[in-house]
């Protein structure tokens, strides 16, 4: 067994499996459009880690096998020692290094990094108390929150599906009637109609009926309830004459302006599910949503950080900076990047994009910063490294127009292993390859 682990056959198996796995990963990334998915299935998966560990053992073993070393082993030892140093350098960086982004607007200062791939949840209750939860192994518990949150596997999403989810989130922010996550079903059920109200000639699905029955209309202010009622009545009156969506929006928004003066002659909380469905569609018109425009809604890339959580059987999808309500509106939940403080304070004074003459293609991005009071200038490919080993790289400048305050994204990192392990290792690999060639083709 040990002989096999140190053999070249095992090395070939490892190389071939690494090759296959990485091809699969780039394919996954191209299909889903998400680097995250590729990382999850390959680069950070146990099998890829197993290949790396296997390579480590194989290289180490095959080197030790050659003991006592002779002169002819020098190229082999140099190249493979270099490789081991590079791999261990990566592990050291992962364990002890820092990698994150620093966002700054002109004039602002900060010493807080946002960490890539690390996020936390901010839960807020109705008294305004906030609790920050870091999810560990896909689970998190809060002191405020009686129920455990579970992060769910992201379902295989089409771009189209993600579009619906983001639309449902927008509607949910606009109209805080708790629908238990059923906005998606509702919007899809309504979608594709030429105009008019929610079509109730088709039977409603059981989920939707349950959600509509649970929805809490009393959370809405009374004028808005009256708006829903009266605009639904007015649109229904015109139903014969093929009401287009724009006319519906105009009716509903005019009704909304009179909302305070309209009588609320029906208790909406106790209305039937069908009535509620009709009223909701009228309310959506009042807020400018209409089903025809959804088809033209730009697709949302599912890779843009949509995450799925389950809480007491309720499914929530959250994007970054997105917000959702939980347990009948008793709590709200937001997704935030994890933060880390660095021992430097950075302030952005001025930022600009220099363009090539006569065009809008950039020649350079540059900014004046101060770090702990000392002035520095950063530009792309002009990186600043502090004495504590933190490197600051100006990665992005938005927006390009000079009229608005500009924002910079700085990539900040600290890699304690690079001078000791990674770079010398890379140098040794290159030297070793050269020596191999010399050894192999010395005699021509």
């Amino acid at each position: 067994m040990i002989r096999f682990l140190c053999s070249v056959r095992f090395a070939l198996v490892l190389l071939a499996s690494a090759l296959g796995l990485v091809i699969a990963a780039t394919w996954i990334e191209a299909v889903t459009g998400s680097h995250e998915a590729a990382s999850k299935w390959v680069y950070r998966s146990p099998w890829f880690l197993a290949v790396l560990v296997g390579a480590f053992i194989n290289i180490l073993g095959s080197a030790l096998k050659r003991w006592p070393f002779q002169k002819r082993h020098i190229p082999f030892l140099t190249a493979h020692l270099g490789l081991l140093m590079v791999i261990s350098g990566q592990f050291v960086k992962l364990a002890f290094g820092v990698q994150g982004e620093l966002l700054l607007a002109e004039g602002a200062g900060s010493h807080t990094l946002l960490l890539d791939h690390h996020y936390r949840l901010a839960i807020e209750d109705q008294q305004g108390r906030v609790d920050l939860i870091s999810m560990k192994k896909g689970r998190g518990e809060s002191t405020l929150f009686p129920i455990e949150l579970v992060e769910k596997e992201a379902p295989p999403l089409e771009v189209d599906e993600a579009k619906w989810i983001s639309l449902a989130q927008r509607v949910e922010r606009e109209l805080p009637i708790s629908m238990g996550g059923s906005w998606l079903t509702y919007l899809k059920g309504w979608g594709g109609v030429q105009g008019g109200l929610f079509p109730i000639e088709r039977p409603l699905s059981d989920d939707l009926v349950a959600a509509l029955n649970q929805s809490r209309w009393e959370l809405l202010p009374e004028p808005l309830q009256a708006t829903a009622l009266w605009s639904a009545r007015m649109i229904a009156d015109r139903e014969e004459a093929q009401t287009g969506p724009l006319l519906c929006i105009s009716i509903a928004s005019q009704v909304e302006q009179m909302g305070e003066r309209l009588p609320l002659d029906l208790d909406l909380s106790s209305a039937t599910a069908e009535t509620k469905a009709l009223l909701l569609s009228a309310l959506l018109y009042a807020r400018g949503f209409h089903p025809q425009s959804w088809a033209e809604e730009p697709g949302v890339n599912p890779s843009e950080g949509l995450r799925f959580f389950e809480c007491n059987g309720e499914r929530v999808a959250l994007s970054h900076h997105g917000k959702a309500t939980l347990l009948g509106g008793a709590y709200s939940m937001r997704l935030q990047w994890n933060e880390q403080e660095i021992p430097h304070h950075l302030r952005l004074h001025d930022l600009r994009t220099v363009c090539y003459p006569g065009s809008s293609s950039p020649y350079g991005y540059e900014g004046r910063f101060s770090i702990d009071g000392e002035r520095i200038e950063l530009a792309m490919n002009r990186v600043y490294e502090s004495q504590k080993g933190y490197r600051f790289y100006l990665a992005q400048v938005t927006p390009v127009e000079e009229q608005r305050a500009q924002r910079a994204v700085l990539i900040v990192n600290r890699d304690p292993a690079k001078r000791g392990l990674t770079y010398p290792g890379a140098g040794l690999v290159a030297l070793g390859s050269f020596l191999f060639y010399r050894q192999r083709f010395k005699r021509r």
Partner: protein
Amino acid sequence: MRIWLLLFISIAFKVAAASLDSTPLLYEGRFRPAASIPSLWEEAFAETEPLESRWRCLPSRRFGEWLPLCALLKSEENPTLYPEPLFHQLRECYLALREEPSSAPLRKELDKLLWEGYRPLARTPYLYAYGKQRLYPSRFQLELELLLERLPLTLSLAISYLLGWILGPLLFIAPFALHTLWLVARIAVTERPPVSNMAETLLYVPWVVAGLSLLLSRYRRVVICGGLAAGGLLLLFWLSHLGEGMENLPPVLDSNRWLGAHVLLVSGSYGALLLASILGHSYLIKPSLRTPKRILQTLYIGTGMLIGGTLLGAVWAAESWGRFWDWDPKESWAFISICSYLLIIHARQFRLLSDLWLALSAALAFFAITFTWYGVNYLLKTGLHSYGFGQGGGGLYLAAMAADALLLTFLALHRKKRVAQ
């Protein structure tokens, strides 16, 4: 020796420059950015105006931009960087030429005025950013640029490479020398390594192939294969309509030190590995005893360059983006290519690969390189190397790969049968 070479180059250059009918300023400079003041030039596009009116010959007061000749018509105020008296001289000359379009002396005078007037402007900066600046091209650079555009270099080089192997390796040296001069001239004009976009790599890689096959030219077959590969790539460039590849550089690439070190090595390795692949094909067509050794030698050179170049790229990424390696698709495919070549080298080293399999795998492994080179930028289009993305040719690429795979299968089966017999 070096003095003779310089003397030869300068004479060749002078002869070539003398063949131009005017100085590069009285000429449609394609890489001079147009001025963004339309009121000064929109008249040029009237059908009645002569073509020359649209040529961008006058350095504008907005630094770095160029005005067309017809800007001289609007005389209220001097829009150029030329001094006032010269501007009026130019204007009179141009107006006279408009009256008498066929007058050679007038045209010559206009040309001379432009050329002499430009002298103080050459090599002065027009654009500043932290740590770097752009200069107005020197008159030498302008002449070179015009020469590069006038001479039908791509096609003539492609043909001479393709024919070079028929006429023998000695005649192979001439196109290689011309190719070298061409690349040097490009570097002199663009002031950067000739590898910043797809078009430029398609000019640089054949040079590596040709150079390497000259280095190994003791073996005739290498030269033949090198000529085929280099000529083929240049022909591909000529057919591909990729443009000159002399466009502006995005800021992320604007670092000659790193761009040179990383991309020159990586795309250089593509050249060596292409040579290995063609040698592999040739072995399958007609086996010879010495071919496998040459295949292995080019594989070693190519893999060494690829590993070195990829590591340098990783160090560049670590120095700027802060991470050494992050499985960006370009990185992943570089890794895949390296793995495939290491597989071959290790298997060969431990005698697990016969000559036939060595040739076949050297030919097949180049598929990974083509995907790294072309596929990631044109088919996958994800990841951080986004400045290189483009489109087109996907179907042709896949068809060519499929055809080559079929051909290789057929050749290998045929060879195997022969060996069995």
